[in-house]
């Protein structure tokens, strides 16, 4: 299997996203389960931790990759790679747009309903639907990034 330097960087980004998702997943779930009564400071603290962890782990992993792999590391992206990136971005941004729209609709519905009420009796919908908007947006952003990286890798593996 022949991987270009840039494809390896996408693999690294996908792995970092998945590893951090599994690491912070339980903490996010705990905040979701609290519902609308969640402490705003706890949400901000967790979001800050996630952002910092993302930046640090990405920088370290990409630095390690650049040290290990020299071929293509200093070359600009070629037209085929740019095409793959554009197509993958399209997938990712579609997911992001749809997710953000769903979150906004959900937020508007929450305002219309009586305080603390949910559209469904299902515990998942209750905790997700009534959770703060920032938390839902983090999940949406995360998912869209995973979709974007996965689509990017799909095009690389397909080769066209």
């Amino acid at each position, binding site marked *: 299997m022949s991987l*270009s330097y840039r494809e390896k960087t996408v693999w690294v980004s996908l792995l970092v996203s998945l590893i951090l998702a599994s690491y912070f997943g339980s903490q996010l779930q705990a905040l979701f389960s609290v519902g609308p009564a969640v402490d705003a400071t706890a949400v901000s603290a967790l979001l800050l931790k996630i952002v910092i962890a993302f930046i640090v782990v990405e920088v370290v992993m990409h630095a390690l990759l650049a040290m290990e792999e020299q071929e293509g590391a200093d070359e600009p992206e070629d037209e085929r790679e740019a095409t793959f990136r554009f197509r993958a971005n399209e997938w990712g941004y579609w997911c992001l747009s749809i997710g953000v729209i769903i979150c906004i609709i959900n937020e508007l519905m929450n305002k219309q309903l009586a305080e603390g009420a949910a559209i469904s009796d299902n515990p998942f919908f209750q905790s997700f639907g009534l959770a703060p908007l920032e938390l839902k947006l983090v999940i949406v952003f995360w998912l869209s990034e995973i979709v974007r990286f996965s689509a990017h890798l799909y095009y690389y593996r397909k*080769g066209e």
Partner: protein
Amino acid sequence: MAHFVITNKIRELRFFADEMTQSALAEQVGVTRQTIMAIEKGKYSPSLEVAFKIAQAFGKPLQDVFFYEKQ
């Protein structure tokens, strides 16, 4: 309706150019080795600019390297 595909004889031209490697061709053209590999296999159709650069690397006109033919 007849289906047309873009084919090429880059592999053959590399062979006659002293077994030029894909990396060497990629460097001359300014793309990655993986892109040359994909073009060679017919998986990726390059832009006109890259196609001209590939033909130029072998000192051939474009029509001697790339072909648009019925599948």
